[in-house]
């Protein structure tokens, strides 16, 4: 059956009655062409850090390393006394984000555990110099509005 004739059967009300169960009056479930299942909805993985300092910032993570620290040279600057000048690195490899301590004075914590390095999972709570940072990861549909620039 060709494309057009398929469309005709599905949209013509008269023909739809043909598929109805005589007893219940409900339409029978129709088998969809296989190609319907093959298509793919483009998605993109997004990850953010929500920094719970006075500014309450949201930082979008990409594939480049980011340095967190107190100085203005850092990619993410946190102005808190207990944060070291270069405190931690966020990196991306094998489709995963990691955090690594850069020999900071006060260390880094993931969900309250002091770590040297750690692969991050969604909703992990990081702590750097007393500042809490929430790691969020989500997959969203990539359409015209959401396309990465």
């Amino acid at each position: 059956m060709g494309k057009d004739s398929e469309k005709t059967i599905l949209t013509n009300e008269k023909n739809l009655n043909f598929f109805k169960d005589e007893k219940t009056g409900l339409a029978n479930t129709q088998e969809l062409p296989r190609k319907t299942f093959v298509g793919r909805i483009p998605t993109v993985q997004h990850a953010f850090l929500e920094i719970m300092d006075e500014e309450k910032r949201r930082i979008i993570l990409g594939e480049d390393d980011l340095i967190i620290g107190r100085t203005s040279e850092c990619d993410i600057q946190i102005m808190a006394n207990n944060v070291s000048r270069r405190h931690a690195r966020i990196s991306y490899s094998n489709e995963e984000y990691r955090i690594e301590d850069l020999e900071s004075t006060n260390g880094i914590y993931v969900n309250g555990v002091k770590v040297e390095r750690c692969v991050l999972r969604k909703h992990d709570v990081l702590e750097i110099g007393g500042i809490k940072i929430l790691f969020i990861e989500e997959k969203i549909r990539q359409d015209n509005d959401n396309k990465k620039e």
Partner: protein
Amino acid sequence: MTTRKNDKMLVTFWGTRGSISTPGRITEKYGGNTPCVSIRFNDTQIILDAGTGIRNLGVELVEEIKREDNPTLLHLFLSHTHWDHIQGLPFFLPSYHKNTKLIIYGSHRKERFLASILKEQMDFDYFPVSMSSFAADISIREMNDKVIQIGPLVIDWQEQVYHPGGSVRYKISTNGNKIVYATDVELNRMFDNLKDNDINENLARDYMNFISDADLLIADAQYTEEEYPEKVGWGHSSVHVLLDIAFKSNVKQLAVFHHDPQHSDKFLDDLWMENRSKYSSKDRKMDVFWAREGMTLAI
């Protein structure tokens, strides 16, 4: 004063799940790979168990091996040879790399030689590649010496009886820091009826001496107290029994390990929340956490 990184042992969890690997969405946080932990102290590298988690460690190590001119020396200590502790070995990439020297240590108290047990795992009926295909220089040692010295690391070990077929616990020390790896042991049976049982009293004392003052104890608590009665004799401990004994032994940090395959991330999160602050007194605090794959601590 800050401690320099090279004064510390770096402990990485590559597999934390017990019994069988459990991939899937509900286990991605704590991980689905079976036991493997690496300890690195500068150039000295120790691996504890070769569960499926060792595959990812191998992927990372082989990149280093390729960059090195000199052979890389790796020491693999097996707690025992149940599947979940050896099944990753055939997938450990450094084994297939010429520039690797791998020494595998295990108990001498098995009925069969450790070498033949490991070779049989790679028998053609189970796996298409035999152990003789390993290009690395491999030696397999059944431990006799009470203490093994590897560079700056001292490795102490003891046999554990309350696990089917037995298992071995290890203590790794350097610079006054101690890490104990004591998985696959049923502490509930060891610490039961101590007053009426001399054997258990001795075993319990040995256990507590071994773990006492550990900076990090990695230990099995596969079951909750509610689950344990149906698992008696299976060779694993329950959460509260482990936590009580560790606290009494002055353990500073406890990584609960060998997670049950049925326990989801949420289940383990809830267990952790319920227990994390119970073990602290005015004088001291024991940090408790549930070990997860991809986490590295400096000890």
